[in-house]
């Protein structure tokens, strides 16, 4: 895929992230490759343990022992980030790439005012006067939909509601005009009505500021309404990728197809949902070959070999028995 992209903003190639545990080495991210263009929104979808969040952390170099990036490369604008000394990584984090987490209290310091925290976030990367920093902070807060932004700068995090706190976290991520924001399930803990507000604002922000975004989520519907491209992860690997609407309409991988089919919206009320059997495998004893094979209705002897990445235009999948190939022809 990266071949078709002339000048990718972020290029991840064969990224491997491992954790040393008592039970042995756990490979959370297994040879993940993808690229993102400037200003593009990409959805990274998977269930818990699929490696989607670890992929996000690996890009930022936020893997602490006993975890480590065991291989591959992460290039931002052509510059290699894997193996960069911590000081240089810190200069990139919050400046060129920033991150928004599911729980905003993970980023907000409860004892400092929002204004102070935003000033610190700016001061970490450039020299500005306090007045200039406040002005910029107020501007960004207003941008993410916080009413009366200037006076709210003197409030502490606990004085905001959950949805407002997440907006503040997004504002801090935007402060230094990053070229890429990694959002790890930022609306999962929020109510649907607040989620809808934030999704609408994120979409407008990405369009207006030209910021690229990796939107990590387990929810196909939010990703489909926000992202242009989708990456589906299962057991540490990207098993399908392509333009969102195309993938959701004609999923190639049986796992993607199963996820879409199991949505209540795709079944008659009261009738059984089309379920995927079994449970997500433990990363400690993955089946050899295709990790989805034991749950797959179409698996065959061939699936004992790990499927290679198949390309077709903007689409890609790792499956020996891709779905819906007839109509594509």
């Amino acid at each position: 895929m990266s071949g078709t992209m002339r000048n990718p903003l972020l290029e991840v190639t064969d990224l491997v992230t491992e954790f040393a545990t008592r039970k042995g080495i756990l490979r959370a991210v297994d040879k993940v490759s993808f690229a993102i263009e400037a200003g593009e929104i990409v959805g990274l979808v998977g269930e818990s343990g699929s490696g989607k969040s670890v992929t996000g952390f690996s890009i930022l170099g936020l893997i602490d022992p006993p975890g480590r990036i065991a291989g591959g490369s992460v290039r931002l604008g052509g510059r290699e980030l894997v193996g960069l000394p911590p000081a240089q990584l810190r200069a990139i984090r919050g400046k060129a790439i920033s991150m928004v987490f599911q729980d905003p209290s993970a980023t907000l310091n409860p004892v400092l005012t929002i204004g102070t925290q935003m000033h610190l976030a700016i001061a970490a990367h450039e020299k500005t006067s306090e007045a200039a920093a406040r002005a910029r902070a107020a501007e960004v807060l207003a941008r993410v939909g916080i009413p009366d932004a200037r006076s709210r700068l003197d409030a502490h995090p606990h004085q905001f509601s959950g949805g407002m706190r997440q907006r503040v976290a997004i504002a801090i991520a935007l402060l230094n005009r990053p070229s890429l924001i990694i959002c790890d399930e930022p609306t999962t803990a929020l109510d649907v009505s607040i989620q809808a507000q934030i999704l609408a604002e994120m979409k407008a922000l990405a369009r207006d500021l030209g910021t690229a975004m990796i939107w990590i989520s387990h929810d196909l519907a939010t990703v489909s309404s926000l992202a242009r491209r989708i990456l589906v992860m299962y057991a540490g690997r990207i098993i399908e990728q392509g333009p969102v609407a195309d993938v959701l309409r004609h999923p190639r991988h049986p796992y993607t197809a199963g996820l879409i089919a199991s949505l209540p919206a795709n079944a008659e009320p009261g009738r059984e949902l089309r379920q995927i059997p079994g449970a997500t495998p433990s990363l400690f004893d993955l089946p050899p070959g295709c990790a989805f094979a034991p749950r797959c209705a179409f698996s065959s002897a061939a699936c004992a070999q790990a499927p290679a990445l198949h390309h077709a235009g903007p689409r890609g999948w790792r499956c020996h028995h891709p779905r819906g190939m007839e109509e594509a022809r």
Partner: protein
Amino acid sequence: MTPLVLAQNVSKRFAPRLGLGERIAAKLGSPVETRTVHAVDNVSLAIAKGEVLGLVGESGCGKSTLGRVIAGIHPPSAGQVTIGGESVMREGRKSTTRIQTVFQDPFASLDPRIRIGEAIAEGPLAHGLMRKADARAEVARWLDAVGLPAEAAERFPHQFSGGQRQRVAIARALAMQPDILVCDEPVASLDVSIQAQIVNLFLKLRRELGLTMLFISHDLGIVRHISDRIAIMYLGRIVETGETEAVFAAPRHPYTRALLDSVPKLVTDSEELVSFKAIAGELPSPLSPPPGCHFHLRCPHAQAVCREIVPASDSQGGMHPVACHFPLIS
């Protein structure tokens, strides 16, 4: 049809538990929170035998509290809950086994130190619903009903995945042979591919056992799929109830309308223009709910009367009941 479960004018208030020092500080004018939370405010609900009632609302709307009051876990501050005419609580303690609960988080709702088999048999044995000699076979029967092997009885909760634990929690509730199951967000903490399995299990159990259910969830898609009737809650009050399809097809309360519009839909057409019709504003604090209709601050149709008078539930013209001064006409 006479309702099986009846909640009449149920309220649940939580007064902050103040220590002596805090009480003195409050008297002296310190900003100590002394206001009472009206988690559930004068709610009446009826569930017919064999029916699945979906209870929908956003976090903090009081749906879980209402579920716990109906299940007899919390005593109501006012009003009462009856099942088949008998009160669920007596002298502040639950006095019936006919109503059982399945909780959201199967990692928290099973005692980590107790084997699965014992967890399932404990309640029925304590209430004489099962004989000790039959316990093994009974446990195996309920495990089978939820799709787990009989060997599971010998294991501890930590040896199971989330979906399997939720199956155990369901088996534990069913072993009490309840007439009604209160399910509080039973799939919210499960993976997407597992959610469908548990929803299917509920559908199967309902078919086979004729279960009555109160299904509490914030996920409108799942509630729509599983419920015969739904009730929408906002800030401690039920704003609309009706047949599921009727409510989804023609919501009468502006909040219901806005909630339905907020749910992201699966977009499979790249040309489709996605717009989010978000409700303006935030959920007001349940510590100081606005007077009159609780929704009037966020409602596009609010008039002067909405700020003063609490709308009564009204089922004008044979339509489903709604608590709104200016119900939507579609």
